């Protein structure tokens, strides 16, 4: 529907003069646009430079992941979960493994739980660092902050590579444990990387947090109210930037998160600056968790001896399991009919649900701010479209 066509033409001269030349302008931002983090389109209606309407359009990367998973075995879709949110393959693995473990009653050994926490928090570190880099890139700080973030990410990806054999598509976890144990010297290397991270964060923050341009572009831009955030199911750092204390690591205490001391940072304005700040603070908390976990990891088996790789047939039933992925609540919903394939397999994608409020955050802002607001949502199209 064209917005200009909604105004009857015989009363054209009665339409009050607006900013610009008085006409609404419809712009399709995307699907190929440097700021859309993939193949994503926003149909924006503009009055001058102000946004009066915004509809997100997606589906360009849709490959029906759920149908593919329903036509293969339980283990067969484990590598496929890597491709959902391709920045955070290890947390995707964990969410899926957790769902199947709840469905079958498998117990995870202690060492495997520590390995999961360590890899998940490393994933969170690199995801948040890159997000901040991309956000600055969207603001026009071309390249430099992103390369600073990528330099750190590279160290973490090297750790993933020596542990799992792959830098991004790790495919590391199995039902009831992990695939392989740590290679020699890995813990020392990881400790070194983790201990260097606060210095990187200090440097990063010295350039960014008090930066005048960053403050001007982000403060009071894209404010998300607390009650709307809850009602719209927004999760993750975006929700906590709006001041809601809801972190699944504290609420559900899945895995062994009850053993670690860490705080949940909260924002109180809910604007883009808070969403940036929450990510930086969460990285510092992740460093704390990592230091505790790397010091306390015990020896022992890494997989439940009852776990079968092939021919897994859970009993009839269903389960919903969720974890705190770097982008928000990542959930897997499985229904088993007793066969070797899941009867129903559903991914609850945090990126997709967080986009529900994109229009509410953008209304009334300039079109240049839309880019920044979208950058602060933290989406990955592989997960939005599945």
């Amino acid at each position, binding site marked *: 529907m064209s917005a200009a066509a909604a105004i009857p033409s015989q009363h054209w001269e009665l339409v009050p003069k607006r900013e610009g030349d008085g006409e609404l302008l419809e712009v399709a931002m995307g699907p190929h646009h440097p700021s859309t983090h993939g193949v994503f389109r926003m149909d924006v209606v503009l009055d001058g430079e102000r946004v009066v309407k915004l509809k997100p359009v997606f589906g360009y990367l849709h490959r029906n992941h759920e149908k593919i998973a329903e036509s293969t075995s339980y283990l067969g879709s484990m590598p496929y979960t890597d491709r959902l949110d391709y920045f955070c393959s290890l947390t995707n693995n964990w969410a899926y493994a957790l769902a199947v473990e709840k469905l079958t*009653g498998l117990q995870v050994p202690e060492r495997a739980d520590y390995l999961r926490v360590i890899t998940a928090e490393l994933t969170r570190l690199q995801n948040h660092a890159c997000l901040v880099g991309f956000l600055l890139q969207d603001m026009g700080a071309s390249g430099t902050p992103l390369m600073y973030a990528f330099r750190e990410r590279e160290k973490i990806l090297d750790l993933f590579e020596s542990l799992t054999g792959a830098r991004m598509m790790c495919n590391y976890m199995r039902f009831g444990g992990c695939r392989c144990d740590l290679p020699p010297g890995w813990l020392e290397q990881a400790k070194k990387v983790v201990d260097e991270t606060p210095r990187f964060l200090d440097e990063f923050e010295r350039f960014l947090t008090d930066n005048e341009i960053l403050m001007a572009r982000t403060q009071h831009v894209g404010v998300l109210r607390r009650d709307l955030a809850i009602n719209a199911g927004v999760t993750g750092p975006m929700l906590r930037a709006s001041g809601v204390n809801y972190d699944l690591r504290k609420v559900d205490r899945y895995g062994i998160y009850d053993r670690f001391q860490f705080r949940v940072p909260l924002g109180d304005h809910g604007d883009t600056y808070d969403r940036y700040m929450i990510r930086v603070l969460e990285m510092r908390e992740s460093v704390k968790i990592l230091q505790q976990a790397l010091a306390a990891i015990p020896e022992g088996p890494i997989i439940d001896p009852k776990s079968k790789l092939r021919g897994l047939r859970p009993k009839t039933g269903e389960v919903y399991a969720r974890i705190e992925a770097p982008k928000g609540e990542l959930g897997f919903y499985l229904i088993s009919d007793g066969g070797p394939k899941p009867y129903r397999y559903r991914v*609850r994608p945090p990126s997709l649900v967080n986009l529900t409020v994109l229009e509410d955050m953008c209304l009334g802002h300039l079109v240049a701010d839309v880019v920044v607001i979208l950058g602060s949502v933290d989406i990955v199209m592989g997960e939005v479209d599945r």
Partner: protein
Amino acid sequence: MEDIKAQIESALPGVRLDILPNDSPSGQRSLLVGNAHALAVARFLRDAPDLRFDYCSNVTGVDWPDAELTGKVKVKMLLDGVEKEFEEVKKTVRPGFLEAVYHLYSMEKKHGPVILRLRTGNRTDDNHLPSLTPVWRSCEFQEREIFDLFGIVFDGHPDLRRILMWEGFKDFPMRKDYVEPDDYEYEPTAHDEVLAKARRQFPPEAKA
């Protein structure tokens, strides 16, 4: 779960509720709600001061086609003048339906999940369900996705369009009886089955 059911029943008389069992170790049982009262039940769960399920996390659809259920039924029969009990295998046909599943949590009280299920009458024409988007905004995109992939029509949804598939697409890909269309591009190698497929796809007379 029984407690929540009793609370809803006392607040909303005449509501149809059933608890569905779950045999798996997860033990997450769900609440089957009659469609006529679904919106009222959702509002009650969100607003009741000691429940406060203010966060609808996951919304999804499930397709249950017609299925033949086999169950053992005990039958009493007279055999040689003595009454005996026999087990008889009885087959019943369960008519198919589509299902929408809602996972509710509470951010305020930090409890959950409560799982709501709504069922349509059948899989063809009686495929309408009340939309819960007026209660929880988080259902907006997820209900659109169910409409897109399963073909459940949500009455009262503000913007019910296809979300992942393109407009003009006819079928519902997540249904169990969906057949992939035979329209892939391929390299016409000189194998018999490939050539046969090519003739099916592009009949020779159509070229002229």
